[in-house]
């Protein structure tokens, strides 16, 4: 599939040079784009295809009191810069007041901007999310953003390919998030470097589009820039009727074309990793990168149990930062904060799963805060229609507006130093959610259950 999309987007492929590939959709947000726009302007260049470029403010935006002026003047200036750049170049922008605003990797698919077979780039490492639709989607840096703005193309070296096959079926309560955490735990955070990953197998096929997006989203945490799932009826059903998706006969012919994208039977991959879905337990990270992960039934590992001295040192340092002792049972780890949100887990299905856990229960008194941040204002509106906001509020969660929020704490939603969070986001790096903050990555259901109990629990035991 990677090769099919690659081949169909080649503009130039000269020996001794990276290939020039055409970019179908360029997604832009406020944080990584201002220097690209100013570089473009300084060189006297224009945006080649504003009609293929879509922008949103998501990283810095507040998730409450949006009618008030922004207190953070630096963030306000960055948001204003994007608004100005879009105005000057004719790029469609979903700003804070727009009912379609949300995290770029949530709204792209939601509006149908993301489609199978496309090449999609964004100045954001979680761009692989869109690969869930059978698109070649990857994160780029600011220089590359400028390059795409100017030429609608990118110079790229072809990646190696890797197949991640997850067969069998997940146990009840085990989710897409647990699959991808288990995959990263197995292959390591650099295991996918230089590769384009295709996720396949019975368990991936059984996932909804939301679940597939969660899996593809965290591809970068395994070192690979792009991850994809072959489009199928689940994909087409999700897309039909979305604002940017063709209708009627055009939709039918698009589907016929999309069906041809799947890898041919017997396609060869440079590497193959196989997992049994039935053996995956709910996952909880214990360290300072997403590969430092354990089953909820397990314990914090002893650094001495690692084979290499470098890994032992890294684990020691991680435990010191996390304030954890080796051998501590995962379910005995007490929490201060819970964050349900981010481009990994903030879609309707995620919120439904969390709400199902929270319904009729109360957030533990030992918790300082429990936050639910929908991935988009559309997700928020739909969730409210379904009464999910009421379930969360009644349980003691805060219900916010859409944005990246406490995943990376660029707005006011910050995990204070020394505090411990259960988070549905994608990175547990040191200081990611706030300087000194300690992050454990989990699924939405696991985060909600942790909020209720004040510590991690094995959600499978709740029999929901």
């Amino acid at each position, binding site marked *: 599939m990677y090769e099919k999309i690659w081949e169909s987007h080649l503009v130039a492929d000269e020996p001794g040079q990276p290939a020039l590939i055409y970019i179908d959709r360029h997604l832009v947000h406020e944080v*990584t784009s201002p220097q690209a726009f*100013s570089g473009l302007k300084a060189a006297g260049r224009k945006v080649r295809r504003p009609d*293929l470029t879509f922008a949103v403010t998501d990283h810095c935006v507040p998730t409450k009191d949006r009618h008030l002026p922004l207190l953070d003047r630096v963030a306000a200036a960055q948001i204003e810069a994007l608004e100005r750049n879009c105005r000057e170049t004719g790029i469609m922008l979903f700003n804070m007041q727009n009912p379609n605003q949300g995290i770029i990797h949530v709204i792209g698919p939601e*509006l149908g901007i993301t489609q199978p077979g496309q090449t999609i780039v964004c100045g954001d490492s979680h761009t692989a999310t869109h690969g869930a639709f059978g698109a070649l989607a990857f*994160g780029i840096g600011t220089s590359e953003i*400028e*390059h795409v703005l100017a030429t609608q193309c990118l110079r790229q070296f072809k990646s190696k390919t890797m197949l991640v096959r997850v067969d069998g079926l997940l146990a009840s309560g085990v989710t897409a998030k647990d699959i991808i955490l288990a995959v990263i735990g197995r292959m390591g955070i650099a295991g996918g470097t230089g590769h384009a990953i295709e996720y396949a197998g019975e368990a991936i096929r059984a996932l909804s589009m939301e679940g597939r997006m969660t899996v593809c989203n965290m591809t970068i945490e395994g070192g690979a820039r792009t991850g994809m799932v072959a489009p199928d009826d689940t994909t087409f059903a999700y897309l039909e009727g979305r604002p940017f998706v063709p209708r009627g006969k055009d939709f039918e012919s698009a589907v016929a074309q999309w069906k041809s994208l799947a890898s041919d039977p017997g396609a060869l991959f440079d590497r193959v990793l196989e997992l049994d879905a039935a053996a995956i337990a709910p996952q909880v990270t214990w360290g300072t990168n997403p590969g430092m992960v354990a089953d909820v039934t397990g314990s914090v590992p002893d650094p001495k149990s690692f084979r290499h001295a470098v890994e032992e040192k890294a684990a020691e340092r991680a435990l010191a930062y996390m304030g954890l002792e080796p051998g501590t049972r995962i379910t005995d780890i007490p929490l201060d904060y819970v964050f349900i949100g981010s481009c990994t887990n903030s879609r309707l299905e995620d919120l439904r799963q969390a709400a199902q856990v929270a319904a009729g229960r109360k957030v533990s008194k030992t918790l300082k805060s429990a936050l639910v941040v929908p991935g988009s204002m559309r997700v928020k509106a739909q969730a409210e229609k379904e009464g999910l906001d009421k379930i969360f509020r009644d349980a003691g969660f805060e219900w916010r507006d859409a944005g990246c929020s406490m995943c990376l704490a660029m707005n006011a939603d910050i995990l204070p130093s020394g505090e411990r969070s259960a988070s549905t986001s994608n990175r547990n790096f040191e*200081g990611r959610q706030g300087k000194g903050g300690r992050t454990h990555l989990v699924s939405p259901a696991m985060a909600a259950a942790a909020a209720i109990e004040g510590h991690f629990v094995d959600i499978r035991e709740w029999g929901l």
Partner: protein
Amino acid sequence: MQPFTKHTGIVLPVDRVNVDTDQMVPKQFLKWTTRDGYGRVLFYDWRYLEGEKPNPDFVLNQPRYEGASVLLARANFGCGSSREHVPWAILDYGFRAVIAPSFADIFYNNSFKNGLLLVTLPEAEVSELFERTAKNEGYRLTIDLESETIMDEFGLRLSFHIDPFRRECLLKGLDDIGLTLRWAERIAAYEKARCPSAVMYQPV
């Protein structure tokens, strides 16, 4: 882009695997809209204590590494976020090159676009360089991109390989976009043949 041909400088070792870009430029500095001034915040949380007091335990603050311009690192350097603020910060601090056993993909691309040379060496050779750096105060390396060699003042000579296209761009400081625009006709032809455009079927 500033070209890179040959550089000699003091080596600063950051002896940790998987150094992610969040550590090199934390989120609060991603709100700036310029490319300048990030050197001051490089490794911010590791480098400074409360009130921006230099943390004496962190290598960047140790006098023996003052003026360092070659960063020596461990595997999977630059993993995580795509923020190009990191190569900007590394360059702005005064580094010209980074040596490690492996680099993360996005960081690798970003660095070369800014004239920051990343040298990949086998794990054992990197460990050797860490030992030599620890043993010899003011340890310096000369990196010659033309001949793809690294030398120290004690007779060590290592060779490395960079993709020829990237090497050429770096040696000459070539503007990537300018190069691509030479193919403007091919881009236009592709667009004409495939005519991809985003159509909004239902107003949003």
